[in-house]
């Protein structure tokens, strides 16, 4: 297996959705190819770091304001429909 072939399967490898035989082929490649091993490790780390560090949390005060605005607009919309 060449590195380019390994890379093509990387997403399925990381997601654990490969067949057993394909997974074994990739494991074999990883065994001797240090560079692909690093690429696999650091790609895994990339996914984890974005998953673990939520970048855009909604602050509670803003959340309350948005919630109120949404419900007001829904109420207006409901009233508009009823009066139509």
């Amino acid at each position, binding site marked *: 297996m060449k590195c380019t072939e390994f*890379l093509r399967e990387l997403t399925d490898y990381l997601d654990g959705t490969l067949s057993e035989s394909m997974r074994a082929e990739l494991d074999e490649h990883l065994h001797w190819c240090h560079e692909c091993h690093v690429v696999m*490790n650091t790609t895994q780390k990339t996914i984890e770091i974005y998953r673990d*560090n939520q970048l855009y*949390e*909604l602050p509670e005060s803003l*959340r309350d304001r948005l*919630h109120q605005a*949404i419900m007001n*607009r829904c109420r207006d*919309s409901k009233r508009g429909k009823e009066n139509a």
Partner: protein
Amino acid sequence: METIQKKAGEEVSDELALVQAAQKGDLEAFSELVNRYDRNIFRIAQHITHNEDDAQDVVQDAFLKAYRNLAQFQGNSKFYTWLVRIAVNEALMKLRKRRNEKTVSIDEDVETDDGSIPREVADWSPNPEQLYGQSELGDILKKTIQGLPPGFRTVFVLRDVEGLSTEETAEMLGLSVPAVKSRLLRARLQLRERLAKYFKSRKNGDGQREVH
């Protein structure tokens, strides 16, 4: 395992009951649906628009649109899948307006392989979380993901940040499963390549290679 499956099943039927109540005009039921998903919709909108005002508008507009079109929701898919689909479209529209472009779409830049071929092959050590403080790390992560084409970062956010399945992501974006997989692979590799500039170990040479 049995408990987890049961819980997921209960949540789905509970969600369907809320949607059905909201369809009959129960605003409290709809309010509960907003409570469940507003944080996720805000995160997705922020990732696509990179602008907090736009993200706030997207949250409001997406929920209002969902409310107004509840009658059209058939229950074939999950409510959340349907809601995210609405929110992604709203967010892309905002991005288009801000950039004053006609062509910002999920299909944009599909042909680019820029950064998808690994060049940085030094390991990341020490752990990036030890190397940077939390706010500095947050800035690096934001700046890096902002550099991806919208179609790539949307797929990455739905699959890897929000933890949705490939099939759900495909349904939300109106893409095929192979198209989602291909964008996800390139998004992951491009992010990895860009993050390597900050996180790579500096001990052994420059850690660059030509791919073979």
